[in-house]
C-alpha cells in the first residue's frame, strides 16, 4: 500500500520569499502524484499532478513540483509567495494498480508574513 509523508506541519515564509513544501511517498513503483490546496473554510483544489514524462510539472497559481524517483519525493515550489497563498497544502499519491483512491498526506499549513 502507498503512503505519503509531509514532514513539515507548519511552514512560515515572508511575502515575496520562495517556498518549498516537502512530500515523500512510499510505493513500489512510480505512482500518480498530486498536490492539492485547501484555503480556509474551503474544499481541496488541485494545484498540479504528475503521471509520467517530464518530471518538472507546472500547475496553477504559479506553483510547480518536481518528481525525483531516486528520493521518492514530489516537492512543491513557488518562487515568490503571495499573502493569498496562505492555506493548507496536501500531497497525495495514487497507485497504478489496485485501488485508485489517493492517499493524502497530513498536510502542511503555510503561513505568510507581510
Amino acid at each position, binding site marked *: 500500500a502507498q503512503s505519503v509523508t509531509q514532514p513539515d506541519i507548519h511552514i512560515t515564509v515572508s511575502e515575496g520569499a520562495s517556498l518549498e513544501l516537502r512530500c515523500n511517498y512510499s510505493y513500489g513503483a512510480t505512482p500518480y502524484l498530486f498536490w492539492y490546496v485547501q484555503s480556509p473554510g474551503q*474544499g*481541496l483544489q488541485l494545484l498540479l*499532478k504528475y*503521471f509520467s514524462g517530464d518530471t518538472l510539472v507546472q500547475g496553477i497559481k504559479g506553483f510547480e513540483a518536481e518528481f525525483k524517483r531516486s528520493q521518492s519525493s514530489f516537492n512543491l515550489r513557488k518562487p515568490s509567495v503571495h499573502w493569498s497563498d496562505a492555506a493548507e497544502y496536501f500531497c497525495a499519491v495514487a497507485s497504478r494498480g489496485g485501488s485508485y*483512491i*489517493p492517499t493524502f498526506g497530513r498536510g502542511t499549513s503555510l503561513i505568510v508574513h507581510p
Partner: protein
Amino acid sequence: DTAVSQTPKYLVTQMGNDKSIKCEQNLGHDTMYWYKQDSKKFLKIMFSYNNKELIINETVPNRFSPKSPDKAHLNLHINSLELGDSAVYFCASSNIRTSGRANEQFFGPGTRLTVL
C-alpha cells in the same frame, strides 16, 4: 454553476440524533466520494460510489450509510451521532471512465459537523 455542492455547510446537533448531508455534482462524473477530515486536518476516505454502486467502503461505523439515488448525488446519513463524529465531511467526484487511475478529484466546500 458550482461543480460539487454540499448542504448544509454547518451542522450542529446533539448526541444520539440522526442527520444527513447532501452532495451533488454537475460535472457529469461517474464516481463520488465521502471523506472525513479530523481536527488535525487528516483526510480519510470513507466511501466511494461508481455509477451508483458502492465500490469502496473503508472501516467506518455502520451508523454511517451512504445513499446514491443517481450518479450526480451521494448523500451521507449518520445515525446515533457521537461526539467523535465531529469533523468536516467532504464530498468529491471524479471521472474514472476517462481518467482512470490518474483521477483528479473535485471537492465540495465541506460540511462542518459539530456534535454536542
